[in-house]
């Protein structure tokens, strides 16, 4: 039962992007199209789950003082795997995500879950925590990149939706990312305040 809670909390109650406000840098930068959003979400989820499991498994052997470098080594290993796989099988996505794939190493969600959760909980809970947080992050990316792709480019999944719609280019640019997330956060806080 507890494991299930760890899984579900990442989706809405402790959503990494909208509630914990972690990992906003790649979140804002790559959310231009749904394809990019899903790519980023899956990559981050993979790294998150694997690093959570490994760090939770070796937590008793890591000296407290140098735990952050140790986490980084574990995380960097999985990020390297992700990047090489992505380069081999989906070079276009790799080009679109650019520097933000290697930057998953210092992604606040991954490091944050390692420090706040995996280093204090057992492997099973850490696994579920990683899956939940990863899915939560991916869903948030899906939402914001869907909004930005539609308003900023007039497309969904790279397909034109309405012919006569003239997209607002600014939404596809960096200010658009900040605007959309600000409005979404305001909207979520409004709903939360109503309850």
């Amino acid at each position, binding site marked *: 039962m507890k494991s299930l809670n760890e899984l579900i909390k990442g989706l809405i109650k402790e959503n990494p992007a909208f509630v914990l406000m972690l990992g906003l840098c790649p979140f804002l930068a790559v959310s231009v199209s749904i394809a990019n959003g899903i790519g980023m979400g899956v990559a981050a989820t993979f790294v998150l789950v694997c690093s959570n499991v490994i760090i939770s498994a070796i937590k008793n052997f890591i000296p407290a003082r140098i735990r952050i470098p140790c986490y980084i080594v574990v995380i960097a290993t999985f990020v390297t795997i992700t990047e090489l796989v992505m380069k081999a099988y989906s070079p276009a996505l790799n080009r679109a995500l650019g520097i933000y794939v290697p930057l998953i190493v210092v992604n606040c969600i991954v490091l944050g879950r390692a420090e706040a959760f995996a280093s204090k909980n057992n492997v099973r809970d850490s696994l579920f925590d990683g899956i939940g947080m990863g899915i939560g992050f991916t869903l948030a990316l899906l939402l914001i990149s869907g909004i930005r792709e539609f308003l900023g480019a007039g497309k969904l999944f790279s397909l034109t939706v309405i012919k006569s719609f003239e*997209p*607002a*280019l*600014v*939404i596809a*640019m960096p*200010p658009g990312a900040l*605007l959309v997330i600000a409005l979404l956060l*305001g909207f979520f806080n409004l709903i939360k305040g109503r309850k």
Partner: protein
Amino acid sequence: MNNRLTVLSSPHLHSRESVPRIMWTVVACLIPAGAAGVYLFGMPALRTIAWAAVAAVACEWIIQKLTKKKITVTDGSAIMTGLLLAYNLPADVPFWIPVLGSIFAVAIAKHAFGGLGQNIFNPALVGRAFLVASWPKYLTVFTKPGYDAVTSATPLAMLKEGRLAEQIPYLDLFLGRRAGCIGEVCIVALAAGALFLLIRGYISWHIPASFIATVGIFTYIFGPKGFFTGDWLFHILSGGLILGAFFMATDYVTSPPTARGHLIFGVGCGILTSVIRLWGGYPEGVSYAILMMNAATPLIDRFTKPRIYGTAKRKKATGTGV
């Protein structure tokens, strides 16, 4: 409520001024420039102005209704935002351009920050920046006054692209016989409205004077053929400088309150405008200059805090007295 005793510190002076009174006066002072724009560009200009004003007022009313705030659409601030936005647009744009611009200006730039008096940036200029970034192809096509549907570049755009074949007579620039945004072209009409505001004391001379003088001096010094060869009068009369300096840089909410602050603000706007015009990517920089200085306003306020009445001057007070 009215029976309660209100205790305030002296001096007690009653003023007939109020927010609605000032706002409506500014709106009235903007009308000559708009009328000139409609005369020069025809009905499309009037249509654009009307859409922008109506959308701004309606948006403000809806937001205040939804958030259950006091309805203050009659204070004139929303219609002023709509007017200023429309004055910053080319005449012949599709109707949804001024509508979306006004909605963005009122909803995001004004009410998301807490409403009148709370906004960091001038709402009308934020609306314009949003439109320029989103639909540049509509915002950079200008019609030539007097000729229906004949498009032409603005004098500043021609200067930027090196296509300014012959000198445009200063009189044409002064009267507004050139391509440009609806409210920025007719300098005479703008000056008439601005003069009234200055006489009434609703705006002080500091920001407009320092803004315009800085642009003049800067563009004169860094001229096209070497130092001190610039056509300063052309730079002052073209673009949105007069409209921006008198009606937008002087916005109470987004500019510093002290005279010293005003001067710093105006000089900053002037330098940024000139730099954008001379070396930047855009032909015109007034709106971005004002927005950037809006962001710097809290900093200017910190450095220009007035001395509290009755306290001594910090350094000189002891030295001169003895």
